[in-house]
């Protein structure tokens, strides 16, 4: 590895780069494993300086204020399914982290359930949407239940490019509603997703699946190509 790469990493970590230069390093780290490795090594090299700081007192309301602000992001942070996707990624790359994954799984499973047995025992869906691609071919069926969960039944084995993921969305039938993520689907399979609290599904409600970057759409709204979209109809 070149010395200049190390120099850049060191200067970034100790804070000698300006904001624009720092952002540039952060961007490059995603595509340049050597730079990323140099930054991670530099970070660990100096970390002890921070870890040996004597703890300082916080205001009594600090935690409450943080919690209040977490709520602000509730609309665009569909953290639950993304967390599950994240845990899966960790598991595939680093087997030693199964312990973490199990812990994450326990939390995530409260909100996201995957399993045919479970699906089989559910009541009939309130609404069904058939998602069509741009050529009008059915790609998947979404069953929507009253308790905010949906079951995705893929009809086609569409290819998901490496490093990308499928993301399932709906747009509630309320004025000014924006598409809301119901969760990520890393591969084509039947699965059940429980999204955030939403108004009950209704006739004509939009559902769609898009291809997004790993970890889900960065904006919290659909950005990638649409695999299929369709509108909810009452299941008879």
């Amino acid at each position: 590895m070149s010395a200049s790469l190390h120099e850049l990493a060191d200067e970034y970590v100790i804070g000698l780069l300006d904001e624009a230069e720092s952002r540039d390093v952060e961007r490059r780290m995603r595509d340049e494993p050597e730079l990323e490795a140099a930054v991670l090594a530099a970070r660990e090299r100096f970390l002890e300086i921070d870890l040996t700081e004597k703890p300082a007192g916080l205001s009594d309301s600090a935690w409450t204020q943080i919690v209040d602000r977490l709520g602000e992001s509730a609309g665009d942070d569909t953290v639950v399914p993304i967390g599950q996707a994240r845990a899966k990624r960790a598991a595939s790359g680093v087997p030693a982290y199964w312990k973490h994954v199990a812990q994450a799984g326990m939390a995530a499973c409260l909100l996201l359930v995957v399993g045919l047995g479970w699906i089989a025992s559910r009541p009939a869906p309130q609404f069904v949407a058939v998602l069509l691609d741009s050529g009008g071919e059915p790609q998947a069926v979404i069953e929507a239940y009253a308790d905010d969960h949906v079951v995705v039944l893929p009809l086609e084995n569409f290819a998901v490019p490496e490093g990308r993921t499928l993301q399932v969305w709906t747009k509630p039938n309320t004025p000014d509603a924006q598409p809301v993520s119901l969760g990520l689907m890393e591969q084509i399979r039947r699965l059940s997703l429980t999204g955030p609290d939403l108004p009950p599904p209704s006739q004509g409600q939009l559902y769609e699946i898009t291809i997004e970057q790993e970890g889900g759409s960065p904006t919290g709204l659909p950005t990638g190509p649409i695999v299929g979209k369709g509108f909810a109809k009452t299941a008879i």
Partner: protein
Amino acid sequence: MSTHKSDGNAAGGIDHGGLLIRCAAGDRTALQSLFEAEAPRMKAVALRMLRREEAAEEAVQDAFIRIWRKAHQYEPGRGTALGWIYTVQRSIALNMLRSEKREISQAPEDIDAARELESEMQSADDILGRLDESKRLRFCLGQLEPARRKAVLLAYAYGLSHGEIAGRLASPLGTIKAWLRRSLSVLRECMQ
């Protein structure tokens, strides 16, 4: 090598990586555990850089919001979880420091500034003393000539720029840049 060191033992066996993963899964109790374990020390880091109580408090709150939102980006095996957490805190404090400098550009009413400057210089020396003698960082920083060591610490611990360090150490900017580059390279080799 430091990257092999286990994560979080210093804080009573807390599994920071596991907590981050639970944060990514939307578990607020995990964020709260991180807050209880790390917020006071993170505030000390922010206070060291920003010097003002109120600013440090804000920086810690911002850091926890960012930790919550970005926890899914933490990758086990790519550096320690503590390294990730403190990088978030440092980056927030540094950005606040930079925008403060832009906006206030040396407010004259800050009479304490000179005194703080002295304490900052003194503290840069103290940092070495509190590092673990059995670890490489202390040994390797100790190998540097005092003024050069101070230059490195003023940057890392106080977020000072090349120009500010040159001012503090009353040396030409070019000299400081060369010192820093050389010192960082010495530290890299020494700590391998």
